[in-house]
């Protein structure tokens, strides 16, 4: 039972679905500027989801590029259904799952450790590094994905449940458990 932990998610990219919809229709019409704008607004969300699956920044960066190429190619298939972000992330998820499945045949990559800091990245403050690398490392893969999605996509729990094809109740309990783990890790004490 999870009561009293409120979390409004309406910030960053989540705030304006309509603008994303417009950009997607621009993309469908072959407008490169719309794609560029869309990339600027949603690259972090796409990258975050890709990272949660692929667990290393290089692959996640490659994947981010693949996702936007897909968006460009499949833009015409998008129907305005109220969740442009959901559509974009579904493409990302499908590509990630396929890549993992293909890779899985030859080597077992599922055991790979969490690695979120790109080699070249230097300017990241220590606190952010700690969060992104060490704190997320204490989570299970699924928990990490839920936290990342919630933090950077502006999607609601219900939409995240839909995207990941998980029951809402599971999403909620895993999400809350994950945040608790993170707080405990950060404070080194029982945060609740």
């Amino acid at each position, binding site marked *: 039972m999870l009561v009293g932990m409120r979390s409004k998610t309406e910030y960053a990219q989540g705030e304006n679905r309509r603008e994303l919809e417009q950009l997607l229709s621009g993309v469908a019409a072959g407008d490169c500027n719309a794609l560029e704008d869309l990339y600027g607004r949603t*690259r972090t969300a796409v990258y975050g989801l890709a990272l949660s699956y692929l667990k290393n920044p290089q692959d996640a960066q490659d994947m981010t*590029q693949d996702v936007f190429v897909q968006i460009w190619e499949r833009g015409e298939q998008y129907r305005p259904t109220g969740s442009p972000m959901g559509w974009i992330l579904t493409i990302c998820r499908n590509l990630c799952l396929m890549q993992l499945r293909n890779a899985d045949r030859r080597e077992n990559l599922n055991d790979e450790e969490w690695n979120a800091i790109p080699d070249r990245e230097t300017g990241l403050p220590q606190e952010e590094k700690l969060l992104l690398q060490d704190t997320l490392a204490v989570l299970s893969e699924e928990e990490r994905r839920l936290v990342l999605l919630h933090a950077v996509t502006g999607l*609601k729990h219900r939409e995240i449940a839909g995207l990941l094809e998980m029951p809402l109740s599971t999403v909620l309990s895993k999400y809350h458990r994950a*945040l608790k783990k993170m707080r405990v890790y950060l404070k080194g004490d029982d945060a609740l």
Partner: protein
Amino acid sequence: MTDREIEQKLAQALEKTAPKDIQGVLSRCEERKGTVVFMNQKKKSRRLSGLIAACLMVAILGGSGVYYQRANAVASVVSLDVNPSIELKVNRSEKVLVCTPLNEDAKAILADMSNGADLKGAKLDVAVNAIVGSLVRNGYLSSISSAIMISVEDKDTARAEKLQRELTNTVDDVLQTSASKAAVLTQTLTQDAGLTQQARENSISTGKAALVNRVLALNSSLKFDALAELSVEELKDLAEAGAPAMPIGTDKAMDLAAAAFGKVSAAKMAYSAVDPELDESPAHYEVEIKSQSGEEFEYKLDAYTGAILESKREVEDGAETPAVQPSRPEPPAAVQDIGYAKAKSIALNHAGVSESKTYDMDIELDDEDGTLVYEVEFKSGNMEYSYEIDAASGAVLERKYEGADGTDDDTIAPKPEKPDRQPDAPSGQKTDIGNAKAKSIALNHAGVKQDAVYDMEVGLDEEDGILVYEVEFKSGNMEYSYEIDAASGAVLKYESERDD
């Protein structure tokens, strides 16, 4: 750090580490849009080669009558079938001699290649690459269950098999770069005039005709021409299922679902898609319909009878819709209307005001995003009340109280909350109807008696700040799942499906 701060910091960190390489994206986009998808465009990371997820080998060897025109330079005939059917004739050095669209769908696929003329003289793998790229762009291979069949007809079986292997790799590559999870079926055929004839008459490829014959061999009461209209995916699954009967087809499935949708919702369809699932048990078609107001419907229809096996409805979480937005009951046959008087009494009951103490009562029936609602407004004392009540279920969708000083008070109800369907609920519970009440609301809504229910689970959960009861139970062979607003008792969402 609070949760919010943790998330914000995380978002910041990710923002900094996420790639900012729009040029890289654009450089790949311009080359691809509307043109041939070239192989090996994609930078290969160590994970990107490998095989396609599902590669089914359907080897139909044999075939008796061999008619082979040696004089003609055609060495092999390759056909690609999804629903569009395309045939490529190639010579010994694997150059395309002629590329023919065999049906209307295929013409659309080849439209930007001058109906196939552009592919003449191209190497077979390049041509296949281009065609599959176009199939993907046109959405034929986007569903996880879609299937493409590659058939190679050649007198020389060794050459046919070699070609088939090469083409499978080519198609795999394209599918992989386009994130398609379609299955690839392959077959080699020896040329057969009877088959070719049958194929021509039905505007399909010989490869597809062979697949149709495979289904016919399982059930001779089916008709060749009707089967020829099914997609490769449907035929493949039908064959695997033993071809028990003739499926209704995607068009019919869509029509039936649209009719069912029309009965429950006044709203217009914004989007629909149909997906055959003939390999599942029971075999069915899955139809998704979205209304313009964002409601999502999902229907499962028996693949052979067209009967609706399951229907789901979900109200999408729009940005500005009120937190409480229940679904109307299904099945569609019962389009009920509680009527003005009932709407009024629900509102009065909810507000805890007797009618004699009210004035300026105003009730209107209105259509809110495809849901009929009663808008009940009245005043009592120095308060103004405004309700929106679902005309079908009587659920309170929205409520607002306003004091004489003009301050809104729609969060703190002046009266204990009562579920609308349970006007005799015990007062004293402030904002939580309680487990038992949630359970009874769900049972009531489902029309199921307590003693006919098993595996009942009730849990209180939170969704974006709203407390909801999740009630799940089974009865008979059905499984029910409800989300009920813990404050108002309104049914926010429900699903029922056959429990197999």
